[in-house]
């Protein structure tokens, strides 16, 4: 990962070599800051990848616009679109409640099963839906990618943004159900945002990774939902970790979703949180995020040609 000095897109690296000084009817007063980086060099990046974070910052408003677009379009197209955000976790929770309390007995400790399942489902459905949507987002927005330049990261990021809005709505549902079950609120609920942050970053990492891979290998769009489904059963979304036998314990160890879910529930009920596991999950998330950012930036220059 070389630091190739050819791409200059940060205000701190202003090259005084060429200024559009003379005829400065160009640009307006309010945009002086934008005109600072005047010189750009366009060439093929043979080796190394640069994240170009300055450029990401410059285009930050796009995240807002693209997320807003996705949300508006979804809600304009179908009336059910609004309520689906609530129906999906609710209905799934009811089905699993039926299976795991009537057909067989599941012990979920001090949390009543419906609440237990809902806590897992709200987070899981955000994760699953956001990853799958962002995986297909670049292909879906091919018409933009082939015509205009802006950092492509914002396209899958907008899908995640939409997912976060949905998560916020379903969390409201969750709070309502928690109140119904008269859950005793502990101080540890202040830790909830930590777990939300972790799952959001994990989702972002996988969204970036899969969206860039899907551009070239289209069949990922079909295999991904299948993989996610398997992953769901390998995670304590609808069942507690206590029912996992000893020799399968490693699965919960390497699966970063497990400590996030368990931590979320523990923070809710005031149970002790297993910090070593959470720490490992956190490390996995951070590594995945960095790797996915680099993979994405590297693949980015090919998108317009391959999509």
């Amino acid at each position, binding site marked *: 990962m070389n630091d190739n000095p*050819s791409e200059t897109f940060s205000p701190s690296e202003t090259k005084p070599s*060429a*200024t*559009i*000084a*003379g*005829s*400065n*009817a*160009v*640009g*307006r007063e*309010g*945009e002086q800051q*934008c*005109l600072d980086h*005047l*010189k*750009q*060099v*366009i*060439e*093929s*990046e043979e080796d190394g990848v640069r994240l170009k974070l300055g450029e990401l910052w410059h285009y930050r*408003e*796009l995240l*807002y*616009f693209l997320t807003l*677009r996705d949300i*508006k*379009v979804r809600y*304009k*197209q179908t009336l059910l679109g609004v309520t689906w955000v609530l129906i999906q976790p609710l209905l799934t929770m009811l089905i699993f409640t039926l299976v795991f309390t009537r057909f067989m007995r599941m012990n979920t400790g001090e949390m009543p099963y419906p609440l237990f399942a809902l806590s897992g489902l709200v987070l899981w459905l955000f994760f699953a839906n956001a990853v799958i949507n962002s995986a297909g987002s670049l292909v879906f927005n091919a*018409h*933009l*990618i*082939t*015509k*205009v*330049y*802006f950092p492509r990261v914002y396209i899958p990021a907008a899908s995640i943004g939409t997912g976060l809005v949905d998560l916020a709505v379903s969390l409201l549902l969750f709070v309502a159900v928690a109140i119904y079950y008269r859950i005793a609120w502990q101080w540890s609920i202040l830790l909830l945002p930590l777990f939300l942050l972790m799952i959001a970053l994990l989702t972002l990492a996988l969204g970036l990774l899969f969206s860039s*891979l899907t551009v*070239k*290998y*289209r*069949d*990922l769009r079909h*295999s991904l939902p299948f993989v996610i489904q398997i992953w769901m059963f390998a995670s304590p979304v609808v069942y507690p970790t206590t029912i996992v036998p000893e020799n399968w314990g490693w699965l919960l160890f390497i699966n970063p979703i497990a400590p996030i879910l368990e931590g979320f529930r523990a923070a809710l009920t005031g149970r002790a949180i297993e910090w070593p596991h959470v720490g490992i999950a956190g490390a996995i998330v951070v590594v995945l995020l960095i790797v996915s950012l680099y*993979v994405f930036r*590297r*693949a980015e*220059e*090919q998108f*317009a*040609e391959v999509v």
Partner: protein
Amino acid sequence: MTLSIKTENICKRYRLSALHPAHVTLRQVLDEALSAPFSRGRNNNRRSQTLWALRNINLEIQQGELLGIIGPNGAGKTTLLKILSRVVKPTTGRAVVYGRVGSLIEIGTGFHQELTGRENIFLSGAILGMRRAEIECKFDEIVAFSELEKFLETPLKWYSSGMYVRLAFAVAAHLEPEILIMDEVFAVGDATFQQKCLVKMNEIRQQGRTILFVSHDMMAIKEVCRRAVLLQGGRLVADGGPAAVVSKYLGSSRESGSEV
């Protein structure tokens, strides 16, 4: 005069690969998914053919020039514009660009059918590179230029093609980049509209901005441009006054029998 764009030996190669995504098996996907991000197309599939869309393009464009780019279909004009607007990267060579580039490679980039005219102005403006504050500031001007005041709250899917084009160009015309790249955007729109666009282009040039203008409309090229270049087969074959370049182009296309 100060330099606006300088290209140095730009070449662009496309691989016409036999590996079409539809035929890739899961096993191949796994294989390649692991090595592809690191091989960057050097992973040569011997069955693939290559197409050189651009060869050794060396061009210097001064600030404030209105350069016409002409040539037959497939000559590489759009590829060159895409490279300059950073949509694709050159295979070899480099370009140095001074200033922001606004690219109008297609009319209505960023528009979404389900959103209203107003929402699309903001969305498209943002995608084309305007700040939100800038769009808000120019909103009334944009609407006035498009003459679509009454239809701002109507979803775009109900617009006629003429309205669509007027809105799209109204947004694009208020981009204020140092360099504006336009690719055959006048292929749609009636005569009045085209005239309006040409007037606007002159205004933009008088503000000191550089414009690159790709068109098949030889009249428009001769009318507004003071310099033109001809691309054929990926190479720059002529560069000079528009009248001369246009007649060279028409002459050669008459010889080869291809239509203008």
